[in-house]
């Protein structure tokens, strides 16, 4: 965990990443709040806040007396949400920085096309 951002947000993101990567499959049970707390060495109340954030978003749902599960359709919903975030957090600043340096949009497109292709997970 990094100490400069709220930890509950980081927990929520870590769970989202696992769902996006398929490590946590849809309808699979997610670890309990106390298990998250012990694994990440954080306060259980903070871990609970992170998990509840995803419950409020409908990414996770509770089965009474059993635990927390990944909702069907979560992966696609998260992918959409992350794409929007990517646009706001990376693409817009990229264009702003390019403009500052006098790089035109056309030049920027050429640069992106000429950049080495990332051979990682394409999901």
């Amino acid at each position: 965990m990094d100490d400069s951002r709220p930890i509950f947000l980081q927990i929520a993101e870590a769970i989202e990443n696992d769902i996006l990567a398929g490590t946590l499959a849809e309808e699979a049970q997610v670890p309990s709040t106390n298990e998250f707390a012990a694994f990440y060495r954080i306060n259980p109340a903070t871990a609970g806040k992170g998990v509840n954030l995803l419950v409020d978003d409908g990414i996770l749902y509770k089965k009474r007396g059993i635990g927390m599960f990944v909702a069907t359709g979560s992966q696609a919903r998260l992918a959409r949400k992350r794409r929007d975030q990517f646009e706001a957090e990376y693409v817009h600043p990229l264009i702003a920085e390019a403009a500052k340096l006098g790089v035109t949009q056309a030049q920027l497109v050429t640069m992106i096309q000429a950049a080495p292709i990332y051979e990682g997970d394409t999901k």
Partner: protein
Amino acid sequence: MTTVVEANGLTKRFGKFTAVDDASFSVEENTIYGLLGRNGAGKTTMMQLLTGQQFASAGSIRVFGESPVENASVLGRICFIKESQSYPEDFRPKHVFASAPWFFENWDAEFAQRLIAEFRVPVNRRIKKLSRGQLSAVGVIVGLASRAPLTFFDEPYLGLDAVARQIFYDRLLEDFAEHPRTVILSTHLIDEVSALLEHVIVIDEGKIIIDENADALRGEAATVSGTKASVDAFVGARPVLRREKLGGLTSVTLEHLDSADRKTAVAAGLELGPVSLQQLIVRKTSIPETEFGAQS
């Protein structure tokens, strides 16, 4: 949530020196608190007041709804682990652990045994012959295994090595999850414990200067840097925790920045940086201005 501790206008003077100055705060049940501050800030005095070991000069304290002073029903629910615990002459760690159940009704002897093995405490050695770290381990074990509804740890780990400190943090979290209770932890190792804390109270020169949820604190502060003119324009009338200058570059630490503020700063070409809990507290409790190099 139930309130365990309620302090109002709490003040403690020693002659002309005011150790705790008009402090008002409350402590909620089943929460881990960090009581943080510099040496001599008033942390230990505060804990002594809450545990009835000092009389307040002014103000009121309620612990479990009653005054803690000479109050067996309150004190029986409190465990106070301090840095310099003294034990009877000729005591050995096994005597400490054997007498603990007399004071703590929730004492878990089996848990204590596991901790003794993990911390490698020589139970048959005289307390006087223990190393500083081993002595601290004895206190930490009592604090954990007593499972008191209100547990104070005042700088519990002087001399404890990194492995032992990690064991302490891990067992505290595990046991807290299974047996929720209120823990007030005073320490200087803020970076090490910050993820354990749910709530932070910072005391400086006897006054409470921060009383907030730890995660809320973590998200709000930021450094903003750029040219002096652009930083000044952004800062405006906001209170600045710390200002640093390096040539034409100015960097300020601000305590509260919401997401709209952050967008404005980025749009103005300013650079935003993170501030950890430890950095935030250092900046809140030290001299606010540093200049590197020549006057700009």
